[in-house]
């Protein structure tokens, strides 16, 4: 199965230094929270961006979901701060 596409917005994007990247697809029952914990272990921008998961929100295939959702077979996972509207 294809890699998982991650997209980042706002200060998450800035901390990581890129607006998207491909990562190796985890097992379908791995949650978003578990995935970003693994990514944070890379250190650097990922560690900074994912240090406080309570400040993060996520969308799977353009739908808001809780961080504890399993990634399943989604093709795009977005990680970002709470939205601040218009």
């Amino acid at each position, binding site marked *: 199965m294809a890699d998982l596409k991650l997209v980042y917005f706002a200060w998450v994007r800035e901390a990581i230094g890129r607006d998207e990247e491909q990562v190796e697809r985890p097992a379908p029952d791995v949650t978003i929270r578990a995935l970003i914990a693994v990514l944070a272990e890379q250190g650097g921008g990922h560690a900074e961006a994912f240090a406080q998961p309570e400040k993060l929100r996520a*969308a799977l295939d353009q739908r808001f979901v809780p961080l504890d959702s399993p990634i399943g077979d989604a093709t795009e996972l977005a990680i970002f701060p709470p*939205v601040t509207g218009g």
Partner: protein
Amino acid sequence: MTRISIQAEDFDPAAELMALEASGGGGVASFTGIVRGEGGLVALELEHYPAMTSAQVERIVEEALERWPLLGVRVIHRYGRLEPGERIVFVGTASRHRAAALEACAFLIDWLKSHAPFWKREHFADRTAWVEARAEDDAKAEGWLKPPR
């Protein structure tokens, strides 16, 4: 008539109102959001999630159409760099019933402010800062989970 635009360009509220007035309703309600220039703000920068924004706004407009008897809905949301005094967002609604037009307009703007995938960064002369989400906006939007008045 339902029309949604997510755009960098400015818009003309007058033209939008004319179109809504022509939809045959008894009332047209509108809300225009303007960048406030407080605390030395030089510009606001709006980032959004294009693949998600339009789909989300379409969904919430559909919800408004289910809740209220609307003849027309117009939503415009800008992104990019906006200076104080510039328009950010427009919601216009037309209905035979004034309460429906007003309530649907308030519902849509509350949702856009609290749930649309936009992030704002404030630029001041000497620094920039991402705006933090306000619990108050969430509370406004959650209020609509109750049946409309």
